[in-house]
């Protein structure tokens, strides 16, 4: 038995088989999407299907057609702005609130935190109508603020950041106080840099959630000029659309690329962040 095979047991083989099987199940739809886009129309779904792309130029033609002939680019811009503004807001409000909840004592702290945590258990479907009515009353329908503002205070984000900030030693906050740092300076110079990992994780998770959010934009932004990527893709998929499968797939692929890239670049941070928020609490 040589050194390479020395550690291999039936158990390791079984584990790898299982991991590979899960990977195939997860990756195949994405691969199929690429396959359909970069092929001549009809080819992948013919009687003799191919599992690999056959025509790059056909794919680029379809992408060009979608960008040129539909409001896709505009939707991209709206979705990006929606995601970036939401991330900024969630990080700002979440970290400010977490700073107070985790490092300072004030009357009603526990009760308030409990209320916020309870809100995590209320399904979105329950709050959608009141939130819509409120947004409509303010006159924010079909506006960027209507899209963004209701999602700025994230109970999940607060929970996650509180877990992180609780791990900051009290001594450090007191040392900063003795060093003459103001309340805001302690937040800015001490607490915030110390939970940078958590902030990055929260930013990524918020991006994923905002980019994939379908229901709220569908309700609050009904005018085509405010459509997000999700809604545009929805139009492609609608029963009365005349698009062929490969055009619909191209729209889907374009929608999936940003979160895919995000995940590939930051996957390590995501895993680290989630693991830490669990173990430190």
């Amino acid at each position, binding site marked *: 038995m040589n050194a390479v095979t020395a550690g291999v047991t039936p158990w390791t083989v079984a584990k790898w088989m299982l991991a590979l099987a899960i990977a195939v199940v997860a990756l195949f739809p994405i691969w199929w999407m690429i396959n359909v886009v970069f092929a001549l129309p009809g080819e992948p779904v013919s009687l003799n299907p191919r599992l690999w792309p056959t025509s790059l130029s056909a794919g680029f033609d379809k992408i060009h057609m979608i960008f040129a002939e539909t409001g896709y680019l505009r939707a991209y811009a709206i979705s990006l702005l929606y995601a970036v503004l939401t991330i900024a807001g969630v990080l700002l409000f979440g970290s400010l609130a977490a700073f107070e909840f985790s490092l300072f004592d004030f009357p009603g702290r526990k009760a308030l935190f409990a209320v916020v945590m309870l809100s995590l258990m209320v399904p979105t479907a329950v709050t959608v109508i009141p939130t819509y009515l409120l947004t409509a009353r303010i006159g924010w329908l079909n506006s960027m603020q209507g899209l963004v503002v209701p999602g700025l205070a994230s109970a999940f984000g607060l929970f996650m950041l509180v877990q992180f900030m609780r791990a900051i030693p009290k*001594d450090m906050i007191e040392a900063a106080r003795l060093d003459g740092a103001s309340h805001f300076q302690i937040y800015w110079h001490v607490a915030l840099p110390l939970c940078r990992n958590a902030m990055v994780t929260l930013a990524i998770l918020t991006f994923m959630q905002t980019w994939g959010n379908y229901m709220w934009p569908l309700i609050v932004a009904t005018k085509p000029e405010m459509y997000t990527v999700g809604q545009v893709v929805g139009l492609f998929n609608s029963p009365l659309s005349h698009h062929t499968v490969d055009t619909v797939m191209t729209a889907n692929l374009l929608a999936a690329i940003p979160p895919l890239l995000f995940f590939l670049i930051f996957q390590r941070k995501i895993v680290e962040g989630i693991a830490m928020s669990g173990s430190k609490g």
Partner: protein
Amino acid sequence: MAFLDITSVSKSYGAQTVLENVNLLIEKGEFVVFLGPSGCGKSTLLRMISGLETITSGTISIEGQVVNDIEPAARGTAMVFQSYALYPHMTIFQNVSFGLRMARKPREMIAKAVGQAAAILKLDRLMDRKPGQLSGGQKQRVAIGRAIVREPRAFLFDEPLSNLDAELRVQMRAELMDLHRRLGTTMIYVTHDQVEAMTLADKMVVMSGGRVQQAGPPLQLYDDPDNRFVAGFVGSPKMNFLPAQVVASEAGRLRLSGIGGSGQADLPLDVPGLQGAVELGLRPQHLHLVAPGEAPAGLVLEGRVVMVEELGSESFVHLDLADGTRITLRAGREADLAPSVLRVAADLRHALIFGPDGLRIRGRDGRAA
């Protein structure tokens, strides 16, 4: 006017009282050590001086100014924490200069102040590192550096050496003494380690149960404690306490019996009318082994050897007396510790008497006994 004046200070959390009626004067430039077991309130008192803890009642004044309601940063004190409390994401330079940067001091001034502190503490070469790359001793120096650059009126140390190993602790102790000599600034230091307290302090404040038990120079507390707690807490190994009965107290003599079973003693102590049970306090070095065949005058006790601690130059012998009291005595290397039962003579010139309430009983003429 004293530099720091603590008057009738109390602290309670709800119904629980942590400090009770503390009165203390600290002079400028003094090295004061608060000594006591865990939970005695010494750290709370330090934190009240620093402003990190509010004062329930009483006043604390620094140089004549009542500071009860003054922000911690404005009190002119700097604190060094047991955990060092360095900011892990900042370099050593940024850590040391943090206070000055927050106060928006000019860049040149910051560089100069940090440079001076670094030179004093030999930190020059570590300035670009992060705290995570430093050893415990270096971290503690950085924490002290951060305090020095603020040019405080008083340094407050909260058990700063507790996280260091024994050797480093001795070294840092010497460095702290040197620092105090060079800067001449008032230093207030909290510890539960009485060796640390004895070696560092100009004035030692022994605390227990939220009260100051006694304050004074270390040797005064060692030689002349006011109560049983101070006598037992200061000194290592600790003082032996032997239960005794007063037989007679008259004409300037105090006669005791039943010491450690059947021992008797006659002390030159003038406490007319004293009767009942008392305790006789004797330090381990004031007990000597009696050679076989020798019959010394005064108090002689007999005890069974329980344990011998060999320290090289000397040994500490633990004996169980007839009434079950355990005592410790110091023996030289030449002593014969082979027998299982040893006889011990006490040097009663150094004996202290404590009443049932734990207070020291002193002679009417003020003579120590």
